[in-house]
Protein backbone atom coordinates (compact mmCIF):
# COMPACT_ATOMS: atom_id res chain seq x y z
CA UNK A 1 0.00 0.00 0.00
CA UNK A 2 1.59 3.24 -1.15
CA UNK A 3 2.02 6.31 0.99
CA UNK A 4 0.19 9.51 0.06
CA UNK A 5 1.19 12.79 -1.49
CA UNK A 6 3.16 15.40 0.41
CA UNK A 7 1.63 18.19 2.42
CA UNK A 8 2.79 20.68 -0.19
CA UNK A 9 1.24 18.68 -3.01
CA UNK A 10 -2.00 18.55 -1.07
CA UNK A 11 -1.91 22.30 -0.46
CA UNK A 12 -1.42 22.81 -4.20
CA UNK A 13 -4.35 20.52 -4.96
CA UNK A 14 -6.63 22.47 -2.59
CA UNK A 15 -5.46 25.76 -4.09
CA UNK A 16 -6.69 24.57 -7.50
CA UNK A 17 -10.24 24.33 -6.13
CA UNK A 18 -10.40 27.90 -4.88
CA UNK A 19 -11.95 30.10 -7.55
CA UNK A 20 -10.80 33.59 -8.37
CA UNK A 21 -12.47 36.22 -6.27
CA UNK A 22 -13.07 33.92 -3.31
CA UNK A 23 -12.83 35.19 0.25
CA UNK A 24 -10.87 32.54 2.08
CA UNK A 25 -9.77 31.86 5.63
CA UNK A 26 -6.93 29.41 6.05
CA UNK A 27 -6.72 27.80 9.49
CA UNK A 28 -3.65 27.68 11.65
CA UNK A 29 -1.03 25.08 10.71
CA UNK A 30 -1.01 23.10 7.47
CA UNK A 31 -3.91 24.99 5.81
CA UNK A 32 -1.73 28.13 5.83
CA UNK A 33 0.37 26.43 3.13
CA UNK A 34 -2.47 26.69 0.63
CA UNK A 35 -1.69 30.39 0.16
CA UNK A 36 1.70 29.54 -1.30
CA UNK A 37 0.18 27.46 -4.08
CA UNK A 38 -2.57 29.70 -5.41
CA UNK A 39 -2.03 29.84 -9.18
CA UNK A 40 -0.17 32.91 -10.45
CA UNK A 41 -2.57 35.65 -11.46
CA UNK A 42 -5.58 34.18 -9.66
CA UNK A 43 -6.82 36.78 -7.19
CA UNK A 44 -8.06 35.27 -3.96
CA UNK A 45 -8.62 37.47 -0.92
CA UNK A 46 -7.36 36.03 2.33
CA UNK A 47 -9.14 36.79 5.59
CA UNK A 48 -7.45 36.50 8.91
CA UNK A 49 -9.62 36.37 12.03
CA UNK A 50 -7.56 39.02 13.77
CA UNK A 51 -8.95 41.74 11.56
CA UNK A 52 -7.70 41.83 7.99
CA UNK A 53 -8.78 41.09 4.45
CA UNK A 54 -6.05 41.12 1.81
CA UNK A 55 -3.32 39.26 3.65
CA UNK A 56 -0.11 38.82 1.66
CA UNK A 57 2.91 36.50 2.03
CA UNK A 58 5.52 36.56 4.79
CA UNK A 59 7.83 39.58 4.86
CA UNK A 60 11.61 39.52 4.58
CA UNK A 61 13.11 38.96 8.06
CA UNK A 62 14.16 42.60 8.47
CA UNK A 63 10.70 43.81 7.43
CA UNK A 64 8.71 42.00 10.11
CA UNK A 65 5.95 44.24 11.48
CA UNK A 66 4.70 43.11 14.90
CA UNK A 67 1.41 44.91 14.24
CA UNK A 68 0.77 42.81 11.15
CA UNK A 69 0.20 39.16 11.97
CA UNK A 70 -2.12 36.33 11.04
CA UNK A 71 -4.26 34.06 13.19
CA UNK A 72 -1.24 31.86 13.81
CA UNK A 73 0.63 34.92 15.12
CA UNK A 74 3.06 34.79 12.21
CA UNK A 75 4.32 37.91 10.45
CA UNK A 76 2.48 38.66 7.21
CA UNK A 77 2.25 41.50 4.71
CA UNK A 78 -0.65 43.56 3.41
CA UNK A 79 -1.59 43.57 -0.27
CA UNK A 80 -2.83 46.73 -1.99
CA UNK A 81 -6.56 46.73 -1.23
CA UNK A 82 -6.16 45.48 2.32
CA UNK A 83 -8.74 46.54 4.88
CA UNK A 84 -8.44 46.35 8.68
CA UNK A 85 -11.34 45.94 11.09
CA UNK A 86 -11.95 45.02 14.71
CA UNK A 87 -12.72 41.60 16.11
CA UNK A 88 -16.51 41.86 16.24
CA UNK A 89 -16.55 42.91 12.59
CA UNK A 90 -14.10 40.17 11.67
CA UNK A 91 -16.20 37.47 13.26
CA UNK A 92 -19.38 38.97 11.82
CA UNK A 93 -17.82 38.18 8.44
CA UNK A 94 -17.42 34.54 9.45
CA UNK A 95 -20.64 34.05 11.35
CA UNK A 96 -22.73 36.03 8.88
CA UNK A 97 -21.81 33.62 6.09
CA UNK A 98 -19.65 36.00 4.07
CA UNK A 99 -16.55 33.83 3.66
CA UNK A 100 -16.63 31.57 0.64
CA UNK A 101 -14.17 28.99 1.86
CA UNK A 102 -12.31 28.06 4.99
CA UNK A 103 -9.71 25.34 5.22
CA UNK A 104 -9.28 23.76 8.63
CA UNK A 105 -7.23 20.98 10.15
CA UNK A 106 -8.96 18.07 11.88
CA UNK A 107 -8.62 15.36 14.48
CA UNK A 108 -11.72 13.64 13.14
CA UNK A 109 -14.40 14.17 10.52
CA UNK A 110 -17.57 12.09 10.64
CA UNK A 111 -19.66 10.82 7.76
CA UNK A 112 -22.34 13.41 8.51
CA UNK A 113 -19.86 16.27 8.30
CA UNK A 114 -19.25 16.67 12.02
CA UNK A 115 -15.82 18.13 12.71
CA UNK A 116 -13.57 17.65 15.75
CA UNK A 117 -10.40 19.68 15.67
CA UNK A 118 -9.90 21.48 18.96
CA UNK A 119 -9.57 18.96 21.76
CA UNK A 120 -8.83 15.30 22.10
CA UNK A 121 -10.72 15.41 25.37
CA UNK A 122 -7.70 14.12 27.30
CA UNK A 123 -7.77 14.84 31.04
CA UNK A 124 -4.54 16.88 31.30
CA UNK A 125 -5.10 18.82 28.09
CA UNK A 126 -5.51 22.59 28.19
CA UNK A 127 -8.48 23.42 26.00
CA UNK A 128 -8.20 26.13 23.35
CA UNK A 129 -10.77 26.86 20.70
CA UNK A 130 -9.93 30.23 19.11
CA UNK A 131 -11.98 30.94 16.02
CA UNK A 132 -12.46 27.37 14.80
CA UNK A 133 -16.06 27.00 15.95
CA UNK A 134 -17.01 30.28 14.28
CA UNK A 135 -15.34 29.30 11.02
CA UNK A 136 -16.88 25.83 11.08
CA UNK A 137 -20.43 27.17 11.20
CA UNK A 138 -19.85 30.31 9.20
CA UNK A 139 -17.98 29.72 5.96
CA UNK A 140 -20.04 28.79 2.91
CA UNK A 141 -17.72 25.84 2.22
CA UNK A 142 -15.74 24.24 5.01
CA UNK A 143 -12.85 22.19 3.68
CA UNK A 144 -10.66 20.03 5.86
CA UNK A 145 -6.98 19.44 5.10
CA UNK A 146 -5.44 16.52 6.93
CA UNK A 147 -3.53 13.29 6.71
CA UNK A 148 -5.97 10.44 6.34
CA UNK A 149 -4.41 8.60 9.26
CA UNK A 150 -3.21 9.66 12.68
CA UNK A 151 0.37 8.96 13.66
CA UNK A 152 -0.92 5.74 15.19
CA UNK A 153 -2.44 4.66 11.90
CA UNK A 154 -6.06 5.33 12.84
CA UNK A 155 -8.45 6.84 10.32
CA UNK A 156 -9.40 10.45 10.91
CA UNK A 157 -12.54 9.82 8.89
CA UNK A 158 -14.97 8.12 11.21
CA UNK A 159 -18.56 6.99 11.52
CA UNK A 160 -19.06 9.43 14.31
CA UNK A 161 -16.61 11.63 16.18
CA UNK A 162 -15.37 10.44 19.55
CA UNK A 163 -13.56 13.71 20.24
CA UNK A 164 -15.43 16.89 21.27
CA UNK A 165 -17.02 18.59 18.27
CA UNK A 166 -15.97 21.88 16.76
CA UNK A 167 -19.08 22.05 14.61
CA UNK A 168 -21.96 19.79 13.67
CA UNK A 169 -22.60 18.77 10.04
CA UNK A 170 -20.38 21.57 8.79
CA UNK A 171 -17.69 19.95 6.61
CA UNK A 172 -18.23 19.88 2.84
CA UNK A 173 -15.04 18.14 1.74
CA UNK A 174 -11.97 16.49 3.21
CA UNK A 175 -8.65 16.76 1.41
CA UNK A 176 -6.26 14.06 2.64
CA UNK A 177 -2.87 12.82 1.52
CA UNK A 178 -4.56 9.73 0.05
CA UNK A 179 -7.76 11.04 -1.52
CA UNK A 180 -10.44 13.68 -1.59
CA UNK A 181 -13.71 12.85 0.16
CA UNK A 182 -16.93 14.77 -0.32
CA UNK A 183 -19.45 14.71 2.50
CA UNK A 184 -22.79 13.61 1.05
CA UNK A 185 -26.14 12.69 2.56
CA UNK A 186 -25.04 9.05 2.12
CA UNK A 187 -21.64 9.47 3.75
CA UNK A 188 -18.23 10.02 2.19
CA UNK A 189 -17.86 9.94 -1.58
CA UNK A 190 -14.30 9.60 -2.91
CA UNK A 191 -13.87 12.02 -5.80
CA UNK A 192 -10.15 11.73 -6.39
CA UNK A 193 -7.43 9.31 -5.32
CA UNK A 194 -3.79 10.27 -5.13
CA UNK A 195 -0.74 8.27 -6.26
CA UNK A 196 -0.94 4.53 -6.18
CA UNK A 197 -3.59 4.37 -3.49
CA UNK A 198 -6.64 2.38 -4.60
CA UNK A 199 -10.27 2.60 -3.64
CA UNK A 200 -9.84 -0.75 -1.91
CA UNK A 201 -7.00 0.74 0.13
CA UNK A 202 -9.28 3.55 1.27
CA UNK A 203 -11.99 1.12 2.32
CA UNK A 204 -9.46 -0.75 4.35
CA UNK A 205 -7.74 2.27 5.86
CA UNK A 206 -10.96 3.96 6.93
CA UNK A 207 -13.13 0.96 7.68
CA UNK A 208 -16.04 3.02 6.34
CA UNK A 209 -18.59 2.48 3.62
CA UNK A 210 -17.36 4.79 0.88
CA UNK A 211 -18.88 5.69 -2.44
CA UNK A 212 -16.53 5.65 -5.41
CA UNK A 213 -17.25 8.90 -7.23
CA UNK A 214 -13.93 9.17 -9.02
CA UNK A 215 -14.02 10.04 -12.71
CA UNK A 216 -11.71 7.35 -13.95
Amino acid at each position, binding site marked *: MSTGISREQLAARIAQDIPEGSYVNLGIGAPTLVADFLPQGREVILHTENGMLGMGPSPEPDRVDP*DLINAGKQAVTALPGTAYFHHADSFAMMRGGHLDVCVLGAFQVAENGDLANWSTGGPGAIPAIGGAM*DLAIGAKSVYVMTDLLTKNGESKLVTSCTYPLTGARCVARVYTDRAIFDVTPDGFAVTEIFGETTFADLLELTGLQLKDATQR
Partner: protein
Amino acid sequence: MIDKTVSSVADAVAGIHDGATVMIGGFGRAGQPVELINALIEQGASGLTIVNNNAGNGDVGLAALLAKGHVKKIICSFPRQSDSWVFDGLYREGKIELELVPQGNLAERIRAAGAGIGGFYSPTAVGTPLAEGKESRVFDGREYLLELPIKADFALVSGYRADRWGNIAYRETARNFGPIMATAAETTIVQVDEIVELGALDPEAIVTPGIFVNRVVAVGERRWLRNGEFVGGVNLEGEAL
Protein backbone atom coordinates in the same frame (compact mmCIF):
# COMPACT_ATOMS: atom_id res chain seq x y z
CA MET B 1 -11.08 72.14 28.37
CA ILE B 2 -11.49 68.42 28.00
CA ASP B 3 -8.19 66.67 28.48
CA LYS B 4 -8.19 62.92 28.96
CA THR B 5 -4.43 62.60 28.75
CA VAL B 6 -2.55 61.54 31.86
CA SER B 7 1.17 61.94 32.18
CA SER B 8 2.26 58.50 33.34
CA VAL B 9 1.20 54.89 33.04
CA ALA B 10 1.01 54.81 36.85
CA ASP B 11 -1.62 57.56 36.74
CA ALA B 12 -3.34 55.73 33.92
CA VAL B 13 -3.94 52.56 35.95
CA ALA B 14 -4.74 54.32 39.24
CA GLY B 15 -7.83 53.02 40.98
CA ILE B 16 -7.90 49.50 39.55
CA HIS B 17 -9.12 47.61 42.58
CA ASP B 18 -8.55 44.09 43.87
CA GLY B 19 -11.08 41.74 42.34
CA ALA B 20 -11.74 43.96 39.31
CA THR B 21 -12.66 42.56 35.92
CA VAL B 22 -10.13 43.94 33.45
CA MET B 23 -10.34 43.58 29.68
CA ILE B 24 -6.95 43.64 28.03
CA GLY B 25 -6.70 44.23 24.29
CA GLY B 26 -4.44 42.36 21.96
CA PHE B 27 -4.27 39.20 19.91
CA GLY B 28 -1.11 37.45 20.95
CA ARG B 29 1.40 40.27 21.24
CA ALA B 30 -0.16 42.53 18.60
CA GLY B 31 -2.07 45.32 20.27
CA GLN B 32 -1.22 44.11 23.75
CA PRO B 33 -0.88 47.19 26.00
CA VAL B 34 2.36 46.05 27.57
CA GLU B 35 3.24 49.34 29.27
CA LEU B 36 -0.19 49.52 30.92
CA ILE B 37 0.05 45.89 32.02
CA ASN B 38 3.47 46.55 33.53
CA ALA B 39 2.01 49.53 35.38
CA LEU B 40 -0.82 47.31 36.62
CA ILE B 41 1.69 44.78 37.94
CA GLU B 42 3.52 47.59 39.72
CA GLN B 43 0.26 48.98 41.04
CA GLY B 44 -0.44 45.64 42.67
CA ALA B 45 -4.18 45.00 42.23
CA SER B 46 -4.85 41.29 42.65
CA GLY B 47 -7.66 38.75 42.47
CA LEU B 48 -8.31 40.06 38.96
CA THR B 49 -10.54 38.54 36.30
CA ILE B 50 -8.88 39.12 32.94
CA VAL B 51 -10.63 39.11 29.57
CA ASN B 52 -8.24 38.63 26.65
CA ASN B 53 -8.15 36.48 23.55
CA ASN B 54 -5.16 34.57 24.85
CA ALA B 55 -3.52 33.85 28.19
CA GLY B 56 -0.16 35.48 27.76
CA ASN B 57 2.92 34.97 25.62
CA GLY B 58 6.47 34.45 26.83
CA ASP B 59 7.31 36.15 30.12
CA VAL B 60 6.18 39.70 29.39
CA GLY B 61 2.92 41.66 29.44
CA LEU B 62 -0.09 39.55 30.35
CA ALA B 63 2.15 36.55 31.07
CA ALA B 64 4.08 38.62 33.62
CA LEU B 65 0.82 39.67 35.28
CA LEU B 66 -0.18 36.01 35.55
CA ALA B 67 3.25 35.07 36.88
CA LYS B 68 2.77 37.60 39.70
CA GLY B 69 -0.23 35.63 40.91
CA HIS B 70 -2.53 38.64 40.54
CA VAL B 71 -5.05 36.89 38.30
CA LYS B 72 -7.81 34.71 39.72
CA LYS B 73 -9.60 33.92 36.47
CA ILE B 74 -9.14 34.38 32.77
CA ILE B 75 -11.87 34.54 30.13
CA CYS B 76 -10.35 33.80 26.72
CA SER B 77 -10.64 31.78 23.52
CA PHE B 78 -7.14 30.44 23.00
CA PRO B 79 -4.97 30.03 26.10
CA ARG B 80 -2.70 27.26 24.81
CA GLN B 81 0.09 28.55 22.58
CA SER B 82 3.70 27.64 21.97
CA ASP B 83 4.78 30.37 24.38
CA SER B 84 2.02 30.24 27.00
CA TRP B 85 4.13 28.42 29.57
CA VAL B 86 3.24 30.76 32.41
CA PHE B 87 -0.49 30.15 32.04
CA ASP B 88 0.02 26.44 31.36
CA GLY B 89 1.86 26.02 34.65
CA LEU B 90 -0.70 27.93 36.72
CA TYR B 91 -3.57 26.07 35.09
CA ARG B 92 -2.06 22.64 35.69
CA GLU B 93 -1.44 23.57 39.32
CA GLY B 94 -5.06 24.66 39.65
CA LYS B 95 -4.00 28.21 40.49
CA ILE B 96 -6.08 29.92 37.84
CA GLU B 97 -9.64 29.56 36.69
CA LEU B 98 -10.36 29.40 32.94
CA GLU B 99 -13.58 30.30 31.11
CA LEU B 100 -13.12 29.19 27.52
CA VAL B 101 -15.22 31.13 24.99
CA PRO B 102 -15.15 30.69 21.21
CA GLN B 103 -13.48 33.76 19.76
CA GLY B 104 -16.53 35.01 17.87
CA ASN B 105 -18.72 34.69 20.93
CA LEU B 106 -16.07 36.46 22.98
CA ALA B 107 -15.99 39.38 20.55
CA GLU B 108 -19.77 39.57 20.15
CA ARG B 109 -20.42 39.30 23.90
CA ILE B 110 -18.02 42.18 24.53
CA ARG B 111 -19.69 44.23 21.81
CA ALA B 112 -23.12 43.41 23.25
CA ALA B 113 -22.08 44.77 26.63
CA GLY B 114 -21.00 48.03 25.05
CA ALA B 115 -24.11 48.29 22.90
CA GLY B 116 -26.66 47.70 25.66
CA ILE B 117 -27.84 44.34 24.30
CA GLY B 118 -29.31 42.07 26.99
CA GLY B 119 -28.32 38.86 25.23
CA PHE B 120 -28.18 37.40 21.74
CA TYR B 121 -28.54 34.14 19.89
CA SER B 122 -25.27 32.90 18.42
CA PRO B 123 -24.83 30.23 15.75
CA THR B 124 -21.45 29.21 17.16
CA ALA B 125 -20.82 26.10 19.30
CA VAL B 126 -24.18 24.46 18.60
CA GLY B 127 -23.79 20.71 19.07
CA THR B 128 -20.44 21.02 20.83
CA PRO B 129 -19.46 20.58 24.49
CA LEU B 130 -19.41 24.37 24.85
CA ALA B 131 -23.17 24.35 24.30
CA GLU B 132 -23.72 22.53 27.57
CA GLY B 133 -25.90 24.47 29.97
CA LYS B 134 -26.76 27.08 27.35
CA GLU B 135 -30.28 27.82 26.17
CA SER B 136 -30.89 26.76 22.62
CA ARG B 137 -33.46 28.16 20.25
CA VAL B 138 -34.36 27.72 16.59
CA PHE B 139 -34.91 30.69 14.29
CA ASP B 140 -35.75 30.15 10.64
CA GLY B 141 -34.83 26.47 10.91
CA ARG B 142 -31.39 27.04 12.39
CA GLU B 143 -30.29 26.43 15.96
CA TYR B 144 -28.67 29.16 18.06
CA LEU B 145 -27.41 29.48 21.63
CA LEU B 146 -28.20 32.31 24.01
CA GLU B 147 -25.09 34.30 24.88
CA LEU B 148 -24.83 37.05 27.48
CA PRO B 149 -22.77 40.25 27.45
CA ILE B 150 -19.33 40.45 29.07
CA LYS B 151 -18.79 43.76 30.87
CA ALA B 152 -15.70 44.94 32.67
CA ASP B 153 -14.69 47.45 35.29
CA PHE B 154 -11.64 48.49 33.30
CA ALA B 155 -10.30 48.05 29.79
CA LEU B 156 -6.62 48.41 28.94
CA VAL B 157 -6.19 49.07 25.24
CA SER B 158 -3.26 49.78 22.97
CA GLY B 159 -3.97 52.33 20.24
CA TYR B 160 -1.68 54.09 17.84
CA ARG B 161 -2.52 57.78 18.14
CA ALA B 162 -4.95 59.76 20.27
CA ASP B 163 -6.09 63.32 20.84
CA ARG B 164 -7.07 65.01 24.11
CA TRP B 165 -10.74 64.08 23.58
CA GLY B 166 -9.69 60.43 23.71
CA ASN B 167 -10.31 59.69 20.04
CA ILE B 168 -8.21 56.68 19.06
CA ALA B 169 -6.72 55.50 15.76
CA TYR B 170 -5.22 52.03 15.54
CA ARG B 171 -2.52 50.41 13.42
CA GLU B 172 -3.09 47.34 11.24
CA THR B 173 -4.03 44.12 13.00
CA ALA B 174 -3.10 45.61 16.35
CA ARG B 175 -6.65 47.01 16.26
CA ASN B 176 -8.24 43.61 17.06
CA PHE B 177 -10.14 43.65 20.40
CA GLY B 178 -9.33 47.25 21.36
CA PRO B 179 -12.35 49.01 19.87
CA ILE B 180 -14.94 46.65 21.32
CA MET B 181 -13.32 46.40 24.74
CA ALA B 182 -13.23 50.20 24.92
CA THR B 183 -17.04 50.19 24.71
CA ALA B 184 -17.62 47.53 27.36
CA ALA B 185 -15.77 48.83 30.41
CA GLU B 186 -16.72 51.36 33.05
CA THR B 187 -13.29 52.93 32.71
CA THR B 188 -11.29 52.63 29.51
CA ILE B 189 -7.59 53.36 29.57
CA VAL B 190 -5.63 53.61 26.34
CA GLN B 191 -1.92 53.73 25.69
CA VAL B 192 -0.78 55.21 22.37
CA ASP B 193 2.48 56.12 20.71
CA GLU B 194 1.65 59.80 20.77
CA ILE B 195 -1.00 62.36 21.55
CA VAL B 196 -1.70 64.58 18.56
CA GLU B 197 -3.50 67.92 18.26
CA LEU B 198 -7.28 67.87 18.28
CA GLY B 199 -8.30 67.66 14.64
CA ALA B 200 -5.11 65.92 13.51
CA LEU B 201 -6.72 62.47 13.35
CA ASP B 202 -8.69 61.67 10.20
CA PRO B 203 -12.33 61.79 11.39
CA GLU B 204 -13.10 58.95 8.96
CA ALA B 205 -10.45 56.74 10.59
CA ILE B 206 -11.16 57.32 14.27
CA VAL B 207 -12.19 53.81 15.20
CA THR B 208 -12.78 54.51 18.88
CA PRO B 209 -14.47 57.87 19.44
CA GLY B 210 -13.53 59.55 22.71
CA ILE B 211 -16.93 58.87 24.24
CA PHE B 212 -15.62 55.40 25.09
CA VAL B 213 -12.31 56.54 26.54
CA ASN B 214 -11.52 57.85 30.01
CA ARG B 215 -7.73 58.13 30.12
CA VAL B 216 -5.03 58.26 27.47
CA VAL B 217 -1.31 58.00 28.01
CA ALA B 218 1.53 58.35 25.49
CA VAL B 219 4.24 55.71 25.76
CA GLY B 220 6.51 56.72 22.86
CA GLU B 221 6.83 55.49 19.32
CA ARG B 222 6.95 51.74 18.78
CA ARG B 223 10.41 50.52 17.87
CA TRP B 224 9.54 49.55 14.29
CA LEU B 225 8.34 53.02 13.32
CA ARG B 226 10.26 56.25 12.86
CA ASN B 227 8.12 59.40 12.71
CA GLY B 228 5.19 57.24 11.74
CA GLU B 229 7.00 55.41 8.92
CA PHE B 230 7.57 51.68 9.11
CA VAL B 231 11.30 50.98 9.27
CA GLY B 232 11.37 47.33 10.35
CA GLY B 233 14.51 45.93 11.92
CA VAL B 234 12.70 44.05 14.69
CA ASN B 235 11.49 40.52 15.30
CA LEU B 236 7.88 39.58 16.07
CA GLU B 237 8.50 40.30 19.74
CA GLY B 238 9.43 43.85 18.76
CA GLU B 239 13.08 43.38 19.72
CA ALA B 240 15.80 44.91 17.55
CA LEU B 241 17.38 42.37 15.20
